[in-house]
């Protein structure tokens, strides 16, 4: 038995000790599912001789829980704004040395000035921004209202979905009433609840996962959600029948950001990657793929595909901020919506 163990140990040593040749530097990225086109990551690896390890998450909460529970040695992560401020408070982030990200200068300063989750971008570099809007099937929806109030129209009852996301849905309702998407006022939220309860009568369900597929299949005619979730399900011809709009009142905007973790082992590579992403040609390719508006000014000239909406269309919208303790208030209201008739 002992001899067998020795043999196994020796074999293991051989494999690990001599198994690989000269070691490439490694970069560990933790990003949202399908959030950078594969070839962009591959090209980075080729250009700088780096082996990139790329893991994916489907929600900020999942990412945060994994990092908090001692996780996994990542260098570069892509949290949304509210989680950037949480991670700053928790001391998880490395301060960004802007001199090492020369392409930071390419970013739209108007957008940067609105980023209250990390004023002055001390710990984060914006990656991509967007907003949830409403996608409609033009063949089925005759209503020309381009406000959130289109959701009050009961003609399409049973063909409508809203995101299963309290910030997005309550944010839309707050905007409809002329309040801030980050409102912490009980009376305002109570009114927003009444608005959502009205919408709830017309929708089939709150859904954040399958609404794009359902819309593509003709199951739903009007869906609330991110444009890319809908359009990536449709071929070019089918896209012609779809209109995506951001309601006049505006809504919550998200910004996903690149941050370097404090305990990252490959900070140099992480800086290199952030700078690479904001090279105008590279960034334009990413935004072309997702048809999102570009926060990188020179990249806009390189884009070949018209995004679903422009930054100017977001004039009335607001960035989502971390609610801190007030998340309980939202949660209570949302729970009441869940069981309310």
């Amino acid at each position: 038995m002992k001899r067998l163990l020795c043999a196994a140990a020796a074999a293991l040593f051989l494999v690990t000790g001599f198994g690989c040749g000269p070691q490439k530097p490694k970069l560990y990225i933790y990003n949202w599912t399908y959030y950078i086109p594969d070839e962009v990551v591959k090209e980075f690896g080729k250009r700088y001789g780096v082996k990139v390890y790329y893991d994916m998450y489907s929600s900020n909460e999942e990412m945060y829980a994994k990092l908090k529970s001692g996780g996994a040695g990542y260098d570069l992560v892509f949290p949304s704004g509210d989680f950037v401020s949480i991670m700053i408070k928790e001391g998880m982030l490395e301060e960004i040395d802007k001199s090492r990200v020369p392409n930071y200068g390419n970013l739209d300063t108007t957008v940067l000035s609105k980023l209250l989750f990390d004023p002055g971008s001390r710990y984060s570099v914006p990656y991509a921004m967007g907003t949830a809007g409403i996608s409609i099937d033009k063949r089925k929806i005759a209503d020309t209202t381009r406000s959130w109030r289109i959701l009050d129209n009961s003609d399409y009852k049973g063909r409508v979905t809203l995101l299963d996301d309290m910030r997005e849905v309550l944010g839309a309702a707050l905007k409809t009433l002329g309040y801030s998407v980050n409102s912490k006022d009980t009376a305002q939220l109570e009114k927003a609840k009444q608005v959502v309860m009205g919408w709830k009568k017309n929708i089939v369900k709150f859904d954040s996962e399958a609404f794009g597929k359902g819309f593509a299949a003709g199951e739903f005619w009007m869906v609330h959600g991110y444009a890319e979730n809908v359009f990536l399900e449709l071929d070019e011809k089918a896209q012609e029948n779809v209109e995506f709009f951001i309601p006049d009142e505006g809504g919550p905007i998200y910004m996903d950001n690149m941050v370097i973790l404090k305990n990252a082992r490959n900070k140099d590579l992480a800086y290199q990657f952030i700078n690479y992403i904001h090279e105008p040609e590279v960034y334009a390719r990413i935004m072309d793929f997702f048809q999102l508006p570009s926060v990188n000014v020179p990249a806009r000239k390189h884009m070949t595909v018209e995004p679903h909406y422009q930054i100017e269309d977001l004039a009335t919208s607001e960035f989502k901020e971390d609610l801190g303790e007030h998340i309980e208030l939202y949660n209570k209201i949302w729970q009441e919506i869940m069981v309310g008739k």
Partner: protein
Amino acid sequence: MKKNYGPFYVAPVTVWLACFFVIPISIIVYYSFLTKGINGGVIHKLSLDAFRALYNPTIFQITINTFQVAILATVIMVSFAIPASYFMARSRFKNFFLLLVIIPFWTNFLIRIYAWMAILGNNGIFNNILLSTGIINNHIQFLYNTNAVILVTIYTYLPFAILPLYSTIEKFDFSLLEAARDLGATKWKAMASILLPNIRGGITTAVLFTFIPAFGSYAIPQIIGGTNSYMLGNVIARELTVTRNWPLASSISMVLTVFTTLGVLLFMRFNRSATESARGQKQKTVAAGAKA
């Protein structure tokens, strides 16, 4: 000399259950008594907040919904499964039928749920047939409501009711039914007073195997359910992720576990006493017969 190998035999399962059952449950119980961390996680300070938060009309309402769905689904499943397993057990092709019951397990559970969407969706197969034959002129909304959740729950867990019932009924001595008929019982009377009491063990297992997963359901209401078919499983997931209240998620999980365990214990107790009293009755009759 005979050695006692018992401890060795049960060691693997004991270790397994300790690691993957006792320890996680203990963590859940422990967390439910802690303070919530503002950004998720827990602060190691004792608190009953998570249990206080349970006194809440929302959670009460969702618990009621969950019970309704689980009980209704279980009753329907078992009442479908008894005749089905009886038929299978008496058939010449029992192995073939058994295979048919097992085949759905070859496909992933989630894919089978999505298949229901293709069948019952607004543009699904069923609606299209009804529309093209002119029976209806507007689609019927089959999905996204509590009935759809019950339907898919029944579909998903029905095999778990059939399999234990089949294995019990298969061992049943069918000549007892003939004897009952000979003694003048009607067909139904024979089934009710001879077959059913004898397969009680199978019925118990079937009820437990179907009620427990149905009660803890998460994916089915999430995918098939509508705006009013949330179940406790969905609330737990929300508290754990979106609202970052781990102690509350733990306390709801505890409620779920306690209800399930109590239900099971009560059910088994009720069952045992029923069996015992039936047995007692029989013994009395036999004794009386012997005396005469």
